[in-house]
């Protein structure tokens, strides 16, 4: 490239133009494909892979959907039962009384309303933990894709090796380490482990590899922009769909995290929802304890709802993000 002979202003203009052209091209492609799909779906013409909708295939898929969804039916039905109905009536039939609202109210008021506290904790862990995990994964993935730094190749081997070690056996060493540093029983003992999303790292690495053209970075560097400015101003916007995907997987992982907080946290005030619900569940099998399975079921249902909403909101980003990871040359 004849960058040396250009003035910075020219360079900038050129870079801008390139960026704009690239963006436009991508937009155009997306528009075309969307239109094409729509047309395919409607007229059944331009998609050669038989566009007419098949009732037969839909029925087969519907069977599979029933398999996926009927456990949720169980959850919803049982959330409407009292504890007495839960033990005495059939699992997929309704109870004698419809107690859904009572259950919801009791979930939020039982033990001085500790469920609300768990809910807030979980959100805190998700925002800080999963948010941080996403940021770290973006930066790490970007570094792996765009720089050939010393130790880079070792990173892969070490990460694969590390996650092959059964997590259960690491729990005690992890606990001892956190205890040494004085972090057990604080929110940090939940947040710090959540910051590592190896799957996110992988995803962002692949995504950076494909979504951020090297030419663009070169241009910015020649322009004199620092690495971080380049990263934030040029790369980040291009990475948006991948970021959403990484964030989503990190959110689910943190939201459902169970084993590590179980070891790390002893103060019910810092429990996330999963630990709290499990504690309620255990109450039924404790000598002299009151069974509150109805609250466990209702609480589980409430726990799932935010994740479902997150899925629904983000599913359009989702495909493109993951797609990058799966693309074969």
């Amino acid at each position, binding site marked *: 490239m004849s960058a040396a002979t250009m003035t910075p202003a020219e360079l900038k203009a050129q870079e801008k133009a390139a960026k704009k052209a690239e963006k436009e091209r991508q937009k155009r492609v997306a528009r075309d494909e969307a239109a094409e799909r729509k047309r395919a779906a409607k007229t059944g013409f331009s998609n050669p892979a038989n566009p007419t909708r098949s009732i037969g295939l839909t029925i087969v898929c519907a069977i599979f959907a029933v398999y996926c969804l009927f456990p949720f039916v169980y959850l919803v039905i049982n959330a409407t039962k009292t*504890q007495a109905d839960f033990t005495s009536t059939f699992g997929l039939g309704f109870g004698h009384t419809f107690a859904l609202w009572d259950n919801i109210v009791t979930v939020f008021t039982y033990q001085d309303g500790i469920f609300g506290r768990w809910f807030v904790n979980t959100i805190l862990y998700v925002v800080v933990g999963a948010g941080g995990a996403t940021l770290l994964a973006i930066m790490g993935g970007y570094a792996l894709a765009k720089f050939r730094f010393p130790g880079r190749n070792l990173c892969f081997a070490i990460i694969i090796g590390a996650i092959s070690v059964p997590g259960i056996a690491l729990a005690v060493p992890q606990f001892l380490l956190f205890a040494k540093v004085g972090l057990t029983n604080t929110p940090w003992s939940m947040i710090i482990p959540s910051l590592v999303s190896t799957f996110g790292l992988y995803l962002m690495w692949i995504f950076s590899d494909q979504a951020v053209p090297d030419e663009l970075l070169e241009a910015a560097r020649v322009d004199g922009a620092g690495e971080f400015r380049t990263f934030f101003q040029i790369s980040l916007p291009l990475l948006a769909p991948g970021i959403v995907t990484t964030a989503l997987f990190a959110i689910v992982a943190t939201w459902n995290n169970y084993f590590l907080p179980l070891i790390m946290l002893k103060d019910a005030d810092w429990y996330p929802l999963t630990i709290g619900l499990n504690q309620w569940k255990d109450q039924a099998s404790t000598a*002299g*304890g009151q069974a509150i399975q109805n609250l466990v079921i209702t609480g589980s249902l409430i726990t799932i709802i935010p994740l479902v909403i997150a899925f629904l909101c983000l599913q359009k980003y989702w495909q493109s993000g993951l797609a990058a990871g799966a693309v074969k040359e």
Partner: protein
Amino acid sequence: MRNIKKVIAATAAVATLVGLAACGGGSDNSSNQGDADNAELVFWGWDSGNSMKDIIKGFEKANPGITVKFNNTGTAEKTSTALSNAIAAGNGAPDVVMLEDPTVTQFAVTDGLVDLSEFGADKLADDFAAGPWNKLQYNNKPYALPIDSGPEMFFYNKAVFDKAGVDGESIKTWDDYYEAAKKIRATGSYITNLAGTSNDYQPFTAQVWQAGAQPWKVDGENITINMTKDAGMKKYIQFVQKLIDEDLVDTKTPNWSDDWNRELNDGTIASLTIGAWMPVNLMSGAPDQAGNWRVAQLPQWEEGQEVSAEDGGSALSVVKLSKNQAAAYKFVEYMTHGDGAQEMADTGTFPSLKKILQSDSFTDPTTEGNKKTNDYFGGQNVNEVLSEAAQRPTEKFQYLPYNPFAQSAYGDEVSKAYTKEITLEQALKNYGDKLAKQGEDQGYTVTVK
């Protein structure tokens, strides 16, 4: 290659660091009594009656310089796991911990708990029922004080018994029990469930305890295991094998499963021999049988005997890592021996303090708590029956210092007898061998008889 060398060097450095750090966590024996009147205590335990906060408030009022932070650690198992982790780490341990009785010895052996006779707890021996008190001694020193107890009782569903033509009150011996089991089986129900899972370990120990058996004996660093040749064990094995062979017990339903509650609720399981804390669980787990359940004394091995045994029960201990041991003991004393004990009993915990067991208010059928329980038991004065059982004599019984292992291995080995793969005798023999191996692994000298 250069990189690999670097990594190895770094790894070695880290290993040394971690190793050193981990070894530094031992307990030193210097006095950590602290100020008995001024302290911030941390207390780990579970809270079956949902009453801990109120009781703690009472304590703080009586001891203005001391505050207690209660961390609900969920279950007995989780609490003892957490405690051993914290002891290993050398910090983050609570001052006071609630433990299930059988695990107390383990922590006493490994020097995790304070010998409470330092604070004069040994003088309280006569105030507590013998069963729970005896379980908490190690080297004849109390390492915990009982907060609740569970004398083994015979709970039965009168409606099912009536249908089978059995009078529950007349079951005095295990032979009577066997005859009743046959009649109940004829109606389609089972007299009880026995599945040999790890959840059945405590009822198992209670039953062999009552039979006077000593499946294991611990004497300092020596352990003797006598699982099948001990006279009491023989009696027990023969009896249970008969129940299994004649299909008189439900061998498919483990204790504490959802199915278990449902079978108690629909009358499939007609009776239980289980700890005296069971009424609360029955009331929430088997609501449809309200009015039908009754409680009676445990059947005896010999006619005319009055031998009891303990199933479950928990206790409070002071953790050796605590810097406020004196204040911690004050709290333990309040909860188990002082005003807190009465409050615990009032909210449904089964007491082990003789004073409470014998008090009029404990058996007074007009108190709100008692009325609720008695209604469920068809108007029977439940606490009167339980109180009698708690004051019956018990044999001395010791748990193994590696009790959690004994409990989980029980499920692995003994359940094979209930799925009828092997005989109970063989299963218990295998179990004994496994316990012996674990003992040797832990440095004990083990003799198997």
